[in-house]
């Protein structure tokens, strides 16, 4: 099951050329671009591992793309997300975030039901991938 988080996630995966154009758009607006990766695709997993520091003061997308290439080399079988942070007063938040890399196979989520008192049912989702320990969830 394809994970749909962030912008563009219902489109086919962006090509490097398209990612470059998006990054350039962010840099032209003065946003700091940041790379993060994770092997836990749960939608409530907000804090992903950071790939280096957010890249401030860049002018050209080539620098970000070089970092992305380096990140893919090491974590090519995981989810990699690119986010752009706007530091201008009043915004001070992430303006754009999208997935730039995903595992070849995404096993999807299981719906768990727990019976509680009074026949109430509590639902929770669990990624099949997280059945295995961290670091060995996707192929590796």
């Amino acid at each position, binding site marked *: 099951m394809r994970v749909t988080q962030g912008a563009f996630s219902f489109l086919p995966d962006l090509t490097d050329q398209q990612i470059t154009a998006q990054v350039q758009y962010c840099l032209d607006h003065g946003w700091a671009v940041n790379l993060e990766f994770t092997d836990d695709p749960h939608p409530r997993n907000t804090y992903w591992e950071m790939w*280096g520091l957010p*890249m401030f*003061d*860049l*002018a*050209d*997308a*080539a*620098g*970000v793309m*070089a*970092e992305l290439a380096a990140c893919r080399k090491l974590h090519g079988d995981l989810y990699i997300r690119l986010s752009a942070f706007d530091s201008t007063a009043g915004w001070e938040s992430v303006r754009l975030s999208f997935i730039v890399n995903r595992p070849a196979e995404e096993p999807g989520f299981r719906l768990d039901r727990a019976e509680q008192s009074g026949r109430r049912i509590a639902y929770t989702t669990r990624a099949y991938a997280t059945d295995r320990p961290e670091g060995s969830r996707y192929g590796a």
Partner: protein
Amino acid sequence: MEFGGPDRLDLSALYADSEVGQMLAALDSELVGLIPVKRRIREITAYLFVTRARQMMGLATGTPTLHMAFTGNPGTGKTTLALRMAAILHGLGFIRRNHVISVTRDDLVGQYIGHTAPKTKEVLKKAMGGVLFIDEAYYLHRPENERDYGQESIEILLQVMENQRDDLVVILAGYKDRIDQFFKSNPGFRSRIAHHIDFPDFSDDELVAITCKMLDEAQYRFSPPALELLRRYVAARRQQPNFANARSMRNAFDRMRLRQSLRLFETPGLMDRAALTTIEAADLRASRVLTGLDGSQQEDDGGNHDTEEAA
């Protein structure tokens, strides 16, 4: 054989269309002297232009190697030219952004193990798409200390210079003999740099012309006796230690302005426009360079080799 693209191209029309022609003309008129440098720039521009034309015709072209080394004494216009070079390369479409990131050893080399690589990469990322100007590049290599972190920085630089040639142009600058020494101990660098440009010292006449230009830009002018005195000043300043060509002239101009301001400040009565814009001979004569001609005056802030000079 099928090439695709047009059969004929009018190079001069192509040249006229681009901003590069104007940029080169501006280079010729705005920068005094530097004849051999200008000729080399013209050659490089022509080469890049023909490369562009070949690409349009569908002929075989590799990305040309654009890395350069600027060698010459201080104040001969290396940084100024690097800025112009970025504009020219940008006009020709060989770099995507018209920016120059100017760095020295401090910006590239870290203080402890593991600090250098991220620092150098950070700088490279900022420079991507434009020109990275490394001033006094030979300080990266410290032959007396084999554990110096400079070597790590050099290796990262070399790798990027080779693999991301279309993303980044690196320009090294420094004194000629030391750059040559640096290349000797880092042959990898020498072979990756296509253009070695040597900046000659300015002649006395050129320095006078440059100083007049600086004054003109700041809306000042010399009175005729002051201009006469300036010629003597240039000749005398050249004999002094830490002479830095045009930079010395700029510093001299700053001091002349100070003296002129003081003179006007202490003159009672009304000022007119001419008084405010004219540098008189008196403003120049007070200079240590000239007063020290007979005596043996010492530089008052000598010692710092790079920031140089007093006058």
